[in-house]
């Protein structure tokens, strides 16, 4: 946590944890996709579930899914913007277990022109606008949105971490944190790597082409308040540059995330 994280974010009220933090979690969920979603199911836990409406949590989550930052003046009208953008949102409440009181699971699906991209992300708003994501598609991950985050879903086999670390080193990307967890031996694993600066396009393309890499996303940092380099926006499709980051969706059914939704929660 740095000095600017304490005196910030600059945000639309009323709550740093329930509005700004919620917006950032949804923004990360949006960046974990290549295309804007057409449907989203948001499951609120604990204090999020109890006071969502009063704190503008629902508006903030919708705003984040549309690519808005916490200080976006359009945030209070997020529902209208969602309708205009063709985004359908469903809110549910549930006990997600022994997690932070401000936790939300964000499942997004669909996309423009019948696309079927599906990503589920679970994270907590820790207070003061800080956030932590600990689950993506049922895999245990660990990142906080203060740095650029590389997400790699890959086959669980020896040498993958070393390969990824080598590519990052060659790209002069310094690794701040690295977390890797698998669901079962020899199955699939997910790696979350927080790095000091965004990976170059050639490095991303190289990683994406590796046969054991099934899915990959490069998420921007969302805490500084600076607009992300190739961020999604609610009034258009993701820019072409983001499109090329496309990991490979295997298409063999292994990337259906819904069954594993709960497994990774601590």
């Amino acid at each position, binding site marked *: *946590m*740095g*000095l*600017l*994280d*304490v*005196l*910030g*974010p*600059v*945000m*639309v*009220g*009323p*709550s*740093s*944890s329930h*509005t*700004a933090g919620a917006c950032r979690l949804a923004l990360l969920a949006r960046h974990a996709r290549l295309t804007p979603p057409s449907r989203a199911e948001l499951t609120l836990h*604990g*204090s999020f579930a*109890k*006071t*969502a*409406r*009063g*704190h*503008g949590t629902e508006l903030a989550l919708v705003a984040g899914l549309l690519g808005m930052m916490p*200080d976006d*003046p359009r*945030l*209070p009208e997020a529902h209208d913007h969602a309708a205009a953008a063709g985004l359908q949102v469903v809110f549910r409440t549930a006990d997600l277990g022994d997690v*932070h*009181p*401000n936790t939300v699971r964000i499942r997004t699906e669909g996309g423009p022109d019948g696309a079927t991209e599906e990503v589920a992300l679970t994270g907590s*708003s*820790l*207070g*003061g*606008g*800080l956030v932590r994501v600990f689950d993506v598609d049922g895999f245990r991950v660990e990142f906080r949105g203060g740095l650029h985050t590389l997400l790699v879903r890959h086959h669980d086999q020896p040498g993958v971490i070393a390969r990824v670390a080598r590519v990052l080193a060659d790209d002069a990307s310094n690794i701040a944190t690295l977390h890797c967890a698998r669901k079962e031996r020899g199955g699939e694993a997910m790696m979350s790597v927080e790095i000091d600066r965004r990976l170059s396009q050639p490095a991303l393309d190289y990683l994406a082409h590796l046969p054991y890499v099934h899915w990959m996303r490069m998420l921007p940092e969302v805490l500084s308040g600076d607009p992300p380099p190739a961020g999604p926006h609610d009034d258009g499709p993701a820019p072409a540059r983001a499109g090329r980051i496309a990991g490979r969706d295997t298409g063999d059914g292994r990337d259906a995330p819904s069954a594993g939704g709960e497994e990774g929660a601590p």
Partner: protein
Amino acid sequence: MTFDELARHPGPASAFFLERETRGDADARDALLAKMAERLAAMRDSVDRGLTNDAKSRTGMVGWNAKGLHQAADLLDAPLLKRVQAYAMAVNEENARMGRIVAAPTAGSAGTLPGALFGVADHLGRSDEELILPLITAAGFGEIISETMFIAGASGGCGAEIGPSASMAAAAITELLGGDAHAAVHAGSLALMNTIGLVCDPVGGYVEVPCVSRNAFYSVHAVAAAQLALAGLESFIPPDEVVGAMASVGRMLPPELRETGEGGVADTPTGRRIALEMAK
């Protein structure tokens, strides 16, 4: 990072924090100061808007208090008191209207620091530029406290939200008025010690009642703490131990009193009525 470490640092607290965050890198230092100046300007802007706007919040519970006090007669002949309270509520009422504010350290407690700091500065005719280093100190205090406990009503009640904000404000004012790191640490500690146990009980779950008036009260509390420390008074309990006490009391609070809107004034007949009305 501990308050003990900070208190042993000669000179102002901001120098300690700047050095720690930028490690002697002049460019990083300039960039940080520039960002802080932006945050300060955004804070000032939220005060100005809040003092002139008296539109009600969505619930209708708040919205006109800051402007009302700002324009009221000063019956106590205490312009500093009135100014600090009006400024603090201005920010929180903007927040309740979903206006643009700076979380300091949270949105619910966003009025305390600007209320106290701008209130004192305007009272004494000090410029906004002179507030940038005190603002660094405020941020540093928040950072130290957050190493022990997440700053959020949901994790430790209002003592973990207004408490840090008042502590940050007390330290900033102490620095503005010439206090060194040692004095700032004791100002911050005194402010924090006297907010321990405050519950978080927002009516209907809205950050309005008690939050708006609470910021008015605790911005004054911060000024009072700075006054004590500048006169040489100290926190008898070492400041780092006070932070520990705040965290442990926060954890003892039942969930009803931690931002769920199910206890305290939120759980009064009127609080329940508002919750029901707004749920419709």
